[in-house]
């Protein structure tokens, strides 16, 4: 009798440990799901070589709005030169963002992008972005940071306007591992 009980108990302990692991497995699963479906405005990136190969559709104009935010704990100012651009799907565009460190010490920040509406994020691709890496600014330093992007021509016709929003977060320790879904996977 004791043997039978030990067998069941052992099996169930293994199941519960596996479910603990499953909780952690939900993390990469969630990232993959978000990348594939574009949920949460997690937009992807594209290489320059690929971007120039896209057909430019000059008959269609899409408005891209830019939005800048800083986290509560981030004493930087952060703005964009032009708050909106009219772009043609397939053409390579550039927007310039300006961040300045308003403290008297060197600080590192990370910008997190988000695209709305969510469905549009599948078609909004960045070629070059300050959000790919962490940004370090000296005391009082300002920095002009360009973003090169392309709107893919396959984007559904009903989307005439989309918003690219960035939030700058402080990076507590520079040794922090870089976020996997922002760094282009080569």
């Amino acid at each position, binding site marked *: *009798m004791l043997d039978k009980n030990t067998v*069941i108990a052992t099996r169930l302990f293994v*199941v*519960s440990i596996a479910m603990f692991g499953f*909780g952690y497995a939900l*993390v990469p699963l*969630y990232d993959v799901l978000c990348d594939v479906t574009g949920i*949460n405005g997690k937009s992807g990136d594209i290489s320059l070589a690929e971007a120039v190969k896209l057909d430019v559709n000059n008959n269609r104009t899409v408005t891209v709005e830019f939005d800048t935010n800083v986290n509560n704990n981030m004493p930087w100012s952060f703005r964009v030169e032009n708050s909106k651009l009219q772009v043609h799907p397939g053409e390579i565009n550039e927007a310039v963002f300006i961040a300045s460190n308003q403290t008297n010490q060197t600080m590192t920040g990370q910008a997190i992008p988000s695209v709305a509406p969510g*469905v549009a994020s599948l078609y909004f691709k960045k070629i070059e972005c300050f959000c790919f890496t962490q940004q370090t600014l000296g005391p009082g330093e300002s920095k002009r940071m360009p973003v090169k992007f392309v709107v893919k021509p396959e984007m559904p016709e009903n989307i005439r306007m989309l918003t690219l929003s960035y939030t700058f977060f402080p990076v507590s320790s520079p040794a922090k*591992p870089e976020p996997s879904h922002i760094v282009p996977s080569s």
Partner: protein
Amino acid sequence: MSEAVMHDIHHDHHPEGLRRWLFTTNHKDIGTLYLCFSLFMFFVGGAMAMVIRAELMAPGLQYVEPQFFNSMTTMHALIMVFGVVMPGTVGFANWLLPMMIGAPDMALPRMNNWSFWILPFAFTLLLLTLFLPSGGPAGGWTMYPPLMLQTETAFPFVIFAVHFMGVSSIMGAINIIATILNMRAPGMKLMKMPLFVWTWLITAFLLVASIPVLAGAVTMLLTDKFFGTSFFDAAGGGDPVLFQHVFWFFGHPEVYILILPAFGIISQVIPTFARKPLFGYASMVYATCSIAFLSFLVWAHHMFTVGMPLAAELFFMYATMSIAVPTGVKIFNWLATMWRGEMTFETPMLFAVAFVMLFTVGGFSGLMLGIAPVDFQYHDTYFVVAHFHYVLVTGAVFAMMSGVYYWLPKWTGHMYDETLGKLHFWLSVVSVNVLFFPQHFLGLAGMPRRIPDYSTQFAEWNAISSMGGFVFGASQLILLWVIIKCVRGGEKATNQVWEGASGLEWTLSSPPPYHSFVTPPTIEDVTSHS
């Protein structure tokens, strides 16, 4: 445990006083410990609810600081979920499962002792946080980051308390599964088991599968706060919404962990007092299984407003609504059991009938919340509070009260005071509706949950709700008195206790012997449903 103590137990003697309770491996002792613990925490959590209702009696800030108010709502929820309903139903399981399946004790008695004795430590850790200078946790029992990560000194206490509660429940669940699968008396086939045993078997599987996910989620919170990971920190590439997904992947099965044992209790009580076998036994078993299965597929209905794609909203909406089918099967089976039965209304039956009606109210408001487009209005309002209090208070807690009155004569050997029991019931059932029904209106009118102050338009219904709350809280003292009185003495209970009761536990003496079935009983003539 030493050889000597083992030897003692085999001869039906056991250490006396504190040592008996500390070292006990007996399922009845441990069941009693669980039930007493649950009752004690019921009053602790209830006192916090009284603070909440006192503050909400009128608009403006009256008695407590907003931070303390929020820690009251947080602690009230954690205590009622993990400290009252879960240990309470485990207490029922410990007392009753071996007696119902014809076993001498639980399968893993020493683990049983552990799984109980972890709990007082877990809740001491949790309650201690109220005495910290920075106060207790105030980020809600759902512990959403980034708010939860702002918790100060209390944070690690809460996380470790949740870990301990989880370990306790998992061990309890493993024990229950092992007992039910291995310890049944010859002839007690799976489809002959009383429904309470079935619902607990399924609940135990839910526990083993979902509690570890909660443990994972809170561990991620812990490492985010102290060890520089960024699971939920956007700056490091994480996502706070991910926490909601992981939490509710646990959280939705959890609500069935709370309610399935209650279904089991009601399925024992109603046939007894309707003097008819349970209608649709097999469909009850299948309905319970399908509820358990579906519970893993509907978690995102707690987060319709978080910004999901349309396809996901629709999937979770339809999956959620489909749970109404097996739940409806259960309600109809209980009604059909009562139909043309020779019903009498002793206190357990009163609570059971109230359960069927009021749980259905909670089920319907759940359906309303499950409709994604309208949930955008109801989300995070008092409508949600009204909904889950209907399913948990008039659902799970009423079922437990029904069970206490039903089995108390069996456990103690004395009949409880029927007049006091009925008084307790009528005061509770009236006041609980005065307490929670107006909260539906408040929610539909737009009153958000988890706030200490509110717009004056909500004043009247809040005042009425608070009155109901105070009466409901005070009525529970009657329950305490009934239990104390019944333990101390009273009319001697017969073995069967209730005229219509059938099942193995009613063949034993009242109170039953320390070891239930030393020789396995014969099953054929005592099963309730065939």
